[in-house]
């Protein structure tokens, strides 16, 4: 049902964990639905210096979270915001149709983390 890439990211998730002093945290989903994702970012000179995640959910949820950290790491804030759900799914060689909506939340979590970072910066001013 899943591509080899999905299984690889599920079995060997990249950048798993929290960033204790993260500059931004984005959490999306809900344990009631079966998927909950948190993405943590560390920003330096407008670039995502570090990206980590923690996820409760199915195989696709874990794989997409792992993939988003790889896609986003090193990118500028602006470029990271351009990453879409489709980009994540494509980078994993596709997801089963039913998973496209319910478990493909990683891009949203990343965007939420950037939003959080921007808000914090705004507040500092």
């Amino acid at each position, binding site marked *: 049902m899943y591509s080899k890439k999905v299984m690889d990211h*599920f079995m060997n998730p990249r950048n798993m964990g929290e960033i204790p002093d993260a500059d931004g945290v984005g959490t999306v989903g809900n*344990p009631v639905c079966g998927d909950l994702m948190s993405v943590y970012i560390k920003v330096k000179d407008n670039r995502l210096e570090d990206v980590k995640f*923690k996820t409760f*959910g*199915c195989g696709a949820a874990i794989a997409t979270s792992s993939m988003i950290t790889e896609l986003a790491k090193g990118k500028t804030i602006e470029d990271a915001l351009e990453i879409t759900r489709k980009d994540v799914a494509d980078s994993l060689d596709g997801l089963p149709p*039913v998973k496209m909506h319910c478990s493909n939340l990683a891009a949203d979590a990343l965007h939420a983390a950037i939003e959080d970072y921007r808000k914090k910066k705004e507040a500092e001013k």
Partner: protein
Amino acid sequence: MDYAAGMPLDPRVFKAMKPYFTENYGNPSSAHSFGANAKNALMKSRERVACLVGAEKPEEVIFTSGGTESNNLAIKGVAYRNKEKGNHIITTTIEHMSVINICKHLQKQGFEISYLPVGKEGMVDPERVKDEIHDKTVMISVMYANGEIGTIQSIEEIGRIAHESQVYFHVDAVAAAGKIPINVDGEHIDLLSVSSNDMYGPKGVGALYIRKGTRIQPVIQGGGQERGVRSGTENIPGIVGMGRAAEIAKEEMAAEGKRLSQLRDKLIMGVLETIERSYLNGHPTERLPNNANLRFSYIEGESLILGLDMLGIQVSSGSACTSKTLEPSHVLLAIGLAHEEAHGSLVFTMGKQNSEEDVDYVLETLPGVVKRLRAISPLTPKEMLR
């Protein structure tokens, strides 16, 4: 360990079926010797299924295309035929989807359905059933055992209540037949659904026991086979297979049931002892011999299935992610689990090909899979990860 999803055909069953595809392809309705041969096979299979469920007369067994059709025939057939008596049916919230969807269908046609809640361990309280009966009640439909959480109901007690109130009692025994003893007479059962592929028989065959004198109408009209209750040329190879499967099940039930319940208990105890925040779903003792339904906090069932599959262990889950509807199992919600708890449940259903080594292997590997997923989950309390 996912026998509930599909069982292999017993080689002895296959052997019994084989001649009926190519050599003995007669139609039981024909008058010639070929037909007589098929008719004879049909009769023998009927006897064997009757014997498995404790029916006195073989002719009380009607062959169908499987458990779903048996449930349709039993519930719709009795509901439609007894409309002048009443329109009320009592069932439970943990029935198989076929029973629940049949009842929903009848509801749209003006029938009144009571879906009785169950306790934390999945038991229906017979007193609740009694209280629910009124003068328009025509039928009570309660499953013998639940294939997902394994809980076995107090069938005899509910049967007695049904009979005292002169209400038909239908039992969906698809998950129970062949695994635990059933006695339609002693348990006051009027209609009982069974399926062949849940006892190592072929798929696409089932049976419905209908007590003599039960007022029922067919849901499939046609040439009048099966005493007019279920028309259509009989699936002789399938029926022969089901008959043989029933015969084997009857012979081996006691020994196999004992063996499986020992494996089951070893698995349950082992998991509960070695994995913290793990729980058993369903009843601790009134439970199918081959079923262990376990729940793990902070993680989700599908990822558990995948992780175990990579290690060669196949199981099932109550998680939404593994269902067609994207809803968690209605059974787990009915026993009072929160959605996130239902998501984290795993169902082990064991069978003939499982051994103690399999259980040992699960006990060796499962803790690691749970630990890994808990490390990834944001819900896991920090102190548990140390």
